[in-house]
């Protein structure tokens, strides 16, 4: 065990070194739209810059899922140019990461809020609210705070009481990026978030902001899990077919970013690690994302194991039953659970089975994982029980034990011993499997790293931290199960 930890440490240090070292390379001269011809261009999926760039066939286009991935590609030399909003990256951040804005584009793109087609009443109210804030200068002052592009925001940030009565207005965002919308602990900031808090005050209702994985926010709007979609949503003709858009609140302009060859954050490896820890974990109390995510991951894993195991025992009893119908049902269930990807099952649970209910995402995740875990655990239990020879039962019965006494006193202790290693494996793979719950807006450990990355654009440190935590959790599961097992053997 000691040895494996030793190697892990070496591996992780190697990763840190790779992540922090800046590659030296030739910097292309890029000063205008025509200069990017023949270069590798990084865009973020779903933005209008992706659409704009995909029309050009003289460049090599690479699509990324988030601004942090895009920035990282630029820094690591996987792309020559990155295209995004002029306000996405602020000056301080660019200096820290080692890239700069080369020039601004002339285009302008309208951004608005998405509403479900059937929600015309809410849309009408919002447009009326928007017209008012435009007229009384509130929107102008918000733009002045958030969109001036220097990365300096008021300190302390304005926190809205968010009181109101009645049903909360539920708002989902795909990107959690400053200065559009971002979270610091429980509160949301950024121009769109503030607009939403103000809209809530105007309506006299509380608002509830939630962050989703990019692909699931639109689905959530359609199924009614949220009422309004935000996150720098650009108005396009295709999207108009599916959603209603509010009036435009702002026109965004593209900017072209390149690697800054002169940038040198300074200091050695140790300095850069210290800087990474400060930026990713300490500033704005970002470690809270990690602890909250850890708690969520542990909760989902443990409860799924608990309920999944109980259900698995039922399945195991069915599979070993004398009734053909019960055996068939159990085997059908297993085939079904093994035949569909966990992510698909999770999405079906969230968007179909529990759609429109007020059950929390965590609860849905626990249900989905427990259902899936039951199939695996049931198989493990059955295998273990089947590996105890039939003669053991007969010997117990022949001595005068009842069926129940024979099962619990003689067969089960032997089955536990045989099945534990496989069961441990199932539990660890469940733990790892929970990293997809971010798709249904659960803020687990993996999602925590995404949220930090979306603020700091630093890929390595947040991922490194969650890697280590997952690794320790997996070891802990093995330890706990061994403890329970050794206790059961002592009885």
């Amino acid at each position, binding site marked *: 065990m000691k040895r494996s930890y030793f190697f892990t440490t070496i591996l992780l240090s190697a990763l840190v070194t790779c992540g922090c070292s800046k590659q030296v390379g030739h910097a292309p001269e890029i000063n205008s739209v025509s200069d990017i011809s023949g270069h590798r261009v990084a865009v973020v999926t779903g933005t209008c810059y992706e659409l704009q760039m995909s029309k050009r066939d003289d460049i090599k286009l690479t699509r990324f899922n988030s601004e942090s991935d895009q920035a990282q590609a630029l820094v690591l030399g996987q792309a020559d140019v990155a295209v995004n909003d002029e306000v996405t990256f602020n000056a301080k951040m660019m200096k820290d990461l080692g890239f700069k804005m080369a020039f601004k584009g002339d285009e302008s793109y309208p951004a608005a809020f998405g509403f479900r087609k059937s929600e015309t009443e809410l849309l009408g109210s919002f447009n009326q609210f928007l017209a008012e804030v435009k007229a009384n200068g509130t929107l102008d002052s918000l733009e002045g705070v958030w969109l001036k592009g220097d990365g300096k925001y008021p300190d302390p940030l304005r926190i809205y009481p968010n009181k109101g009565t009645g049903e909360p207005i539920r708002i989902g965002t795909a990107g959690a990026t400053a200065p559009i919308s971002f979270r610091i602990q429980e509160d949301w900031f950024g121009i769109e978030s503030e607009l939403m808090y103000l809209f809530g005050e105007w309506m006299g209702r509380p608002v509830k902001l939630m962050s989703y994985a990019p692909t699931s926010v639109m689905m959530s709007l359609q199924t009614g899990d949220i009422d309004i979609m935000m996150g720098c949503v650009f108005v396009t003709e295709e999207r108009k077919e599916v959603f209603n858009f509010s009036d435009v609140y702002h026109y965004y302009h593209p900017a072209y970013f390149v690697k800054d060859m002169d940038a040198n954050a300074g200091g050695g490896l140790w300095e850069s690690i210290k800087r990474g820890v400060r930026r990713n974990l300490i500033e704005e109390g970002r470690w809270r994302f990690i602890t909250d995510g850890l708690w969520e991951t542990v909760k989902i894993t443990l409860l799924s194991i608990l309920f999944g195991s109980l259900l698995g025992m039922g399945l195991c009893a069915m599979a070993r039953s004398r009734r053909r119908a019960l055996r068939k049902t159990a085997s059908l269930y297993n085939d079904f659970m093994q035949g569909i990807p966990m992510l698909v099952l999770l999405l079906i649970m969230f968007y179909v089975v529990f759609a429109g209910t007020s059950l929390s995402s965590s609860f849905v995740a626990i249900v989905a994982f427990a259902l899936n875990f039951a199939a695996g655990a049931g198989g493990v239990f059955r295998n273990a029980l089947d590996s105890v020879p039939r*003669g053991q039962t007969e010997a117990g019965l022949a001595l005068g034990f009842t069926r129940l006494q024979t099962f619990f006193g003689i067969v089960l*202790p032997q089955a536990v011993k045989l099945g534990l290693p496989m069961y441990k494996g199932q539990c660890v793979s469940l733990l790892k499997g929970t990293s997809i719950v971010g798709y249904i807006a659960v803020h687990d450990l993996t999602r925590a790293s995404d949220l930090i990355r979306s603020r700091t654009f630093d890929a390595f440190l947040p991922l490194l931290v969650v890697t280590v935590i997952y690794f320790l959790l997996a070891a802990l599961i093995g330890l706990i199960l061994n403890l329970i097992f050794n206790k059961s053997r002592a009885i």
Partner: protein
Amino acid sequence: MISVRHLSKSYINPDGSKFQVLKDVNCEIGPGEVISIIGPSGTGKSTFLRMLNLLEHPSGGEIWVDGENILRKGYPIHKLRRKMGMVFQSFNLFEHMSVLDNVTYAPCKLLGMSREEAENEAMALLRKVGMAEKAGVSPSTLSGGQKQRVAIARCLAMKPEVVLFDEPTSALDPTMVGEVLSVMKQLARESGITMLIVTHEMKFARDVSTRIFFMNEGLIYEDGAPSQIFESPVHSATKAFVQRIQKLVFDITSADFDFYDMQSQMAQFCVKYDIAGKRDAIAHITEEMTQVVLRDYWPLHVVLSYSGQKEETALAFMMEGRETSPLQDEGIDDISLMMVRAMSKEIIEEKTVKGFRVKVIL
């Protein structure tokens, strides 16, 4: 004590056809009797035994124990099983417990014995079967014979009135059969426990039993004292079974025949018919005779035979068309022949219709 009436058992095969293992079994078993159940394989001996404690459920008939019908609905069979122990072919020791715990587990849980009392009794029983030294070890470290002796001790710890032995030596290496049989012999003579033993050990059955059931075709064909069954059986099937002679035949047509294959087949024959004690003698005699004494006398027929009733093993060497004994020929290796004589009871030289035969009786 035990009364069995018109007991039958049939299975439905996967193809839908019916297979009847037991047709109509009737018997009365009194206290203290030691009954061996013998007969060809597949005639329902084990099935019958397993029905007496309902590990197998009969399709028809009645089983009465101490005046109670144990097949009636709601009969507390687990209580009967406490008085009716069973020893299995595959031992079935509890692998997750020590030898001592195997013996104390049931008395502690079922008879309400204190741990100390149960351990004292268990040690006494283990001493009786010669396994006291191994009390603390795991069953997985024991040999088959040792496992079976522990299984007997485990069974006796419940102080049973009846013990059912289901082929207790069939899964054992031939060298370990003896130790288990001697424990059972002692039990039969001293304990006064009623014993029912399904076995292929004819000599053992004959020595320890008060009665023998010969089972054939799902029936108790013949039921009688050992002397009657073995010496003057009534039914021809019984006679054929107890008098049957097992044979293994080889034709040696050249000096280059596969000697080692013959040796290995003979060794397997010895294991199969429980004459493992004679395995080495058979191997030596075969080697001396085929490789030295009769080396140039091919074609040669070699027949290894065993008679269960007479308990006699013989090796015959037959030379076709010969009129005189090869052992009288010039140039025969006298030293090898002396060794063969020393290892055998008797050497018979005889002329037959086909040729000349040298028969070595072991």
